[in-house]
């Protein structure tokens, strides 16, 4: 970032230098940036570097570390079947929950964007799951998912569908976790998309209406394209969030049954804070970081094709 005299002048309340070299300007600015810079270098970049160093060691957090080089990384691919499995399950969670979550949030945003009475109340209702204690709501969902006495299977039974065992099945446990995750993230995504919807000027809809466009065509050709920057933002944060999915599996299934919901973030937690394999946990964290980075870079590279900023 380049700092101009005028920028500095404004930021320093007009007391900044009127002229001078770039170096001179930095010398003046650095004391103000120093506290933030130190904090960031120490607690963000420093921590990342430390984690990378730990990933090259065998360390249990209590006894001295032992340098193992890239052995932890090699072991992940060569010997650790749970690593591959947790990565696949994280991809499964991401591929299903992100599109489902965005579509559900968009529908909710469109619904609460109507000019109806009690709309603030409806918006609050949609947003509530996101701010409620996850442990408390997980207890409710455990009951909802009960295969014999749960409300979900009771409702399915009303339409002659024999409900699955949900959390007790290796096949249905992950879908159950995904449904819970989408429900929980709905309100947050909805608020962002709602802000995007309200930023679209009415003139476009009025013009389309004059041209005789149907509601669906107005939504498809006006709302979706003009909402695409917001949708892209929601997509990126949802992707990152889904790669890091932890709470849902922690409170609902603890990675089970039979590792069916073992996600990479939960596996890192087990390795680090249950089994004290800090080296392996750090290596896993860097693999997760790589995966998130690759997917995010891909998204940024293809966004030009579907995100419209004008």
């Amino acid at each position, binding site marked *: 970032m380049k700092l101009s005299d005028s920028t500095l002048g404004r930021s320093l309340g007009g007391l900044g230098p009127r002229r001078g070299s770039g170096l001179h300007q930095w010398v003046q600015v650095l004391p103000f940036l120093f506290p933030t810079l130190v904090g960031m270098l120490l607690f963000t970049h420093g921590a990342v570097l430390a984690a990378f160093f730990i990933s090259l060691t065998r360390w249990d*957090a209590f006894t001295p570390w032992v340098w193992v080089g890239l052995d932890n990384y090699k072991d992940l691919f060569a010997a650790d079947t749970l690593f591959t499995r947790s990565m696949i399950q994280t991809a499964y969670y991401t591929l299903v929950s992100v599109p489902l979550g965005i579509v559900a949030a968009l529908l909710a945003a469109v619904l609460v964007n109507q000019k109806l009475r009690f709309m603030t109340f409806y918006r609050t209702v949609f947003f509530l799951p996101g701010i409620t204690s996850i442990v408390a709501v997980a207890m409710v969902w*455990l009951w909802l*998912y*009960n*295969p014999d006495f749960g409300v979900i299977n009771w409702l399915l039974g009303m339409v002659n569908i024999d409900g699955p065992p949900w959390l007790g099945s290796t096949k249905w446990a992950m879908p159950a976790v995904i449904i819970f995750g989408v429900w929980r993230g709905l309100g947050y995504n909805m608020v962002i998309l709602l802000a995007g919807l309200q930023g679209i000027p009415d003139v476009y809809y009025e013009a389309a209406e004059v041209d005789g466009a149907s509601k669906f065509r107005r939504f498809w050709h006006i709302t979706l394209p003009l909402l695409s920057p917001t949708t892209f933002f929601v997509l990126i944060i949802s992707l990152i969030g889904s790669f890091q999915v932890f709470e849902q599996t922690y409170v609902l299934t603890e990675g089970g*049954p*039979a590792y069916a919901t073992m996600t990479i973030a939960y596996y890192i937690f087990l390795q680090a*804070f249950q089994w004290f394999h800090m080296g392996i946990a750090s290596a896993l964290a860097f693999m997760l970081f790589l995966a998130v980075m690759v997917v995010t870079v891909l998204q940024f590279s293809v966004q030009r094709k579907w995100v419209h900023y004008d």
Partner: protein
Amino acid sequence: MKRTLARRRLLRAGLVSGAGLAAAALAGCGETQIVEREVVKIVTQEVIVEKIVTQEVIKEVAVEKVVEKIVEVEKEKIVEKIVEKIVTVEAAQPKKAAVALQFNTWWGTVEEYEAEVGDPFTAQNPHITIDWQVTPWGEYWQKMQTQAVSNQLPDFFGQSVAINWDWANKGLVFNLGPVIKRDIDVSKHYTSIWQQARYPVPGHPDQYMMPMETVMSLIYFNVDLFDDAGVDFPEPTWTFNDWEEAGAKLTKTEDGKTTQFGLWGQNSNAFLDAFINSNDGLVLTPDFKTCLLDQPKSVEMIDRTVGWISQGMGPTAAQAADIGGGAQLFTTGRLAMDITGSWQVDAYLKSTDLNFDLMMVPTGPVRRVIYGGPDSWAISSGSTHFEEAWEVIAYGISEERSYKNFPLGRIASNIAVSTSEDFRKKGRVPGYKYLFDSVEYIKGADFGPSWVEWRNAFSNELAPAFLGEKSAQDAATAATEKIQSILDKVAWPAGLE
């Protein structure tokens, strides 16, 4: 108080001496010359306060006897006597430096610890004060681990048998073996349970935590459901055949679905390990180095447990999933019998609608084995007050400690405390006495190295068998392979690799 008493006694002594002198004076007025001599020897002794009281009582008697003798002496006109008087003087003891200990655990309440352990202990040891802390189980280990990493563990703390081995191996706790040998009369304790606290293997003299109390598994049965089904209550003579027979009678189905489960034996250390052991099967070898879960005797019992679920007698993990890990099935009358830990007694007694009782775990095909494990206290290796912390622990397992401080469903380590009438009455249900009868059959769940890690593999690898997705043999084989790979990585102490 002590000063007042001492003064009174000194006054009495003075009076006696005065009486002696008066007698001598009276004798002097008569015709017969009486020679009277009184010798008062003052011996100074340095004794502790408690001893002073005892000694003074004895002296009081002695003084009274002297008075009687004086009367006799007058008659015989022999006055010369020696009154030996020992005056004990409270010596200034070397003042011990004040020590403030920190303690944390996950069970009980701070008020209980203060009232039942802290206050009586501090009364005897005024220089030691204890800051009691209780952190709920959910957050306890996270807190302790963080403190351990930063070398800020409390001086002594509640220790789990599940991680004792690993913490001892990492040098986070002190070895209590030498002080146990020095200070504890082991014949007063259920020492068979202490074997689970030994490191690195049972039988070794090193012990890195002190069991304070023990939990164990029991049959919990719903009295009303038994009455409704006309099934006899469980007996101490029951085998697992009787258990299965009763379970089948107590199971109710409606439209092909089980509406009332007859029994439940969980895929957990509170049941399955002991069930396997009762058939002479093993999960791990006694040296914790080899997994034998895939051996026929072990697989047979896994298969038998899976059968209860596949026959509809027992709930699946999903059917039992709730806050209490299945407790609500029992409290709501949808489960007739359950074998689980004695820690549930407290919760079930609070459930006013539940009419339940307890029974010992049945005998297996070969013998009776009951799961049990101690809740213990350990001393942090970072503590600079080892002796003081040990004094509190030694008090905590002594018969001086009140029975009130032991939660329901726990047997105190001290036999005298556990067998006291008050302690036994705590359970309030007739079958509570079976906790005490169960002690001799208790075995832990191979609480050795990397227990938390290999236990995760145990549950997850066996789960497909319980879900009907794999045979018991296949699941046990996969579990054995995974567990063995974890055990193979254990950093054993030198000489035991």
